[in-house]
């Protein structure tokens, strides 16, 4: 378990101070893949570095598996860090050492005997599917292979936690998928808690169980990934979700909806897993005096669960619309009023 409480970190940039982290508290249970997302400068990488104290917070408390990290002396901190692997956007491998020696490094630093190092490196090379590259130097590897070496190196001392700092941001989409699949294996097969920092919602959708959204040094929203995707509350979160589920409609269509003479509402309907908003909507049309027109529909797989999002315009009397909404909710469909302004206007790219 990773517990960060009331973490504050201020950087001095010239004459003024920048609050990189502003009273942030976060708990990450064991065995989870946890995502930290935010725009650049939101403080997500700084927060990640507070876990293994590559960044020392100005105030607050850091506990990893119950150990008060800030209270440790130099030697004890080194020992704790061996239980926390880390991978980086730029891989940070030694170009002057072979793949074998790179992966062996954390064990050599820890004084592990040579024969045990050899066996463990062979095992790790197999795990990351690079057994044929042991004697290769990193400059000869592709980006994806370099990150695999990085992951193998981070796992060398059998850590219980793996920190991934923008680990796929320098990779192409296909390679990103393979690295994310590997991180999921690390979590599932080795039981390692994985904390992923990213600015790409795609990474969160494909990999994480839970997510925290950061903005200006604070966590503005946190929850299970499926919940955040189906019902994002904060504006910044909606912007990130929109990079995957882009439910905006053309301005002209919005104008047309506004011009509707009858009483109407626009709804954002979400359903996960077994429920289907499509059939429930058809039922509503039959059983209630409501006409609905579809504005947007999509189906995505988020954290292994199918998430459907529909935006519809529903016409009818207020009483009937309320009854229809209740009917849909009873059928397991999430219903929220959709703000037309927000639907139409491009608020800029979240990333």
């Amino acid at each position, binding site marked *: 378990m990773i517990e960060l409480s009331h973490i504050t970190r201020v950087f001095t940039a010239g004459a003024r101070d920048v609050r990189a982290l502003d009273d942030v508290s976060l708990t990450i249970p064991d065995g989870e893949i946890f995502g930290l997302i935010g725009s650049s400068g939101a403080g997500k990488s700084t927060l990640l570095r507070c876990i*293994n104290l*590559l960044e020392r917070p100005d105030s607050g408390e850091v506990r990893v598996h119950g150990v008060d990290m800030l209270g440790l002396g*130099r030697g004890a*901190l*080194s*020992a*704790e*860090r*061996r239980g*926390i*692997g*880390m991978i*980086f956007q*730029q891989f*940070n*491998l*030694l*170009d*002057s*050492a*072979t793949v074998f020696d790179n992966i062996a*490094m*954390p064990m*050599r*630093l*820890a004084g592990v005997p040579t024969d045990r190092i050899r066996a463990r490196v062979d095992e790790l090379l197999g795990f990351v599917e690079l057994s044929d590259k042991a*004697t*290769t*130097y990193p*400059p*000869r590897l592709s980006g994806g292979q370099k990150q695999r070496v990085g992951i193998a*190196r981070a796992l060398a*001392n059998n850590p219980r936690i793996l*920190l991934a700092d923008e680990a796929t941001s320098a990779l192409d989409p296909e390679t990103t998928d393979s690295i994310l699949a590997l991180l999921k294996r690390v979590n599932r097969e080795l039981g390692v808690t994985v904390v992923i920092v990213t600015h790409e919602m795609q990474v969160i959708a494909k990999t994480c169980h839970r997510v925290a959204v950061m903005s200006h040094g604070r966590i503005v929203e946190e929850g299970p990934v499926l919940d955040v995707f189906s019902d994002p509350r904060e504006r910044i979160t909606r912007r990130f979700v929109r990079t995957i589920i882009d439910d905006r409609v053309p301005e002209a269509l919005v104008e047309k909806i506004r011009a509707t003479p009858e009483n109407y509402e626009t709804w954002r309907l979400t359903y996960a897993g077994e429920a289907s908003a499509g059939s429930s909507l058809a039922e509503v049309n039959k059983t209630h005096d409501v006409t609905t027109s579809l504005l947007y529909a999509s189906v995505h797989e988020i954290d292994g669960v199918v998430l459907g999002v529909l935006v519809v315009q529903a016409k009818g009397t207020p009483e009937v619309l309320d009854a229809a909404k209740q009917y849909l909710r009873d059928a397991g469909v999430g219903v929220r009023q959709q703000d037309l302004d927000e639907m139409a206007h491009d608020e800029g790219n979240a990333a």
Partner: protein
Amino acid sequence: MTDFIETYFATTPEVLLEAAADTLYMVGISLVLGTLLAIPIAMGLVLMRPDGIKGNRVGYAVLNVVVNIARSLPFIILMVVLMPLTRFIVGTRIGTTAALVPLTLFIAPFMARLFEASILEVPKGIVEAAQSMGATTWQIIRYFLLPEAWGSILLAITTGTVTLVGATAMAGTIGAGGVGDLALTYGYQAFNTPLMVLTVIVLIVFVQAIQSLGNTLARRTRNRA
């Protein structure tokens, strides 16, 4: 051969060989001593930088100023200034061995600056990765900074060696001998132009050989596999 040398250069093969040996002796010893001094100085400069892993404003400022002062003095002046120290260490102020003291103290800060630049080329992320593995400061130096900077450090040593060859010529003024001294005293001052040309050629060959060797070693370190 002896006749040929005596006819054209008005000197003996023994004199030429002794000069070459003196140059190699002075360059070799002061290079080794200078490098051994320069590496810890460079490491100190890198580690104590305000954003370094052992950030220490005062320590950095002091070391920085000391290196700058040492680098301010032209070799010929440094030689004179250091004479008392030389006599204390070697027992004499003149001769080939006496020249080792100013040569070493001349080249060490010069190479320290070059090494500092080489070590600073190592990406910050490498140090971060080392720290995340729980590496101690000594382990970061030994297993991360030095190996990663090694190719660049070899080129810096090459530059230092060539600079030393030049400095040894001036060491002739304190009776240190060597190829440069041969060119000045036997060649230039005795109006022996053929000998002077010969020594120039020997010096050019020296420098070319050193540079080629340095480049080859650095390339081998950098383009492994």
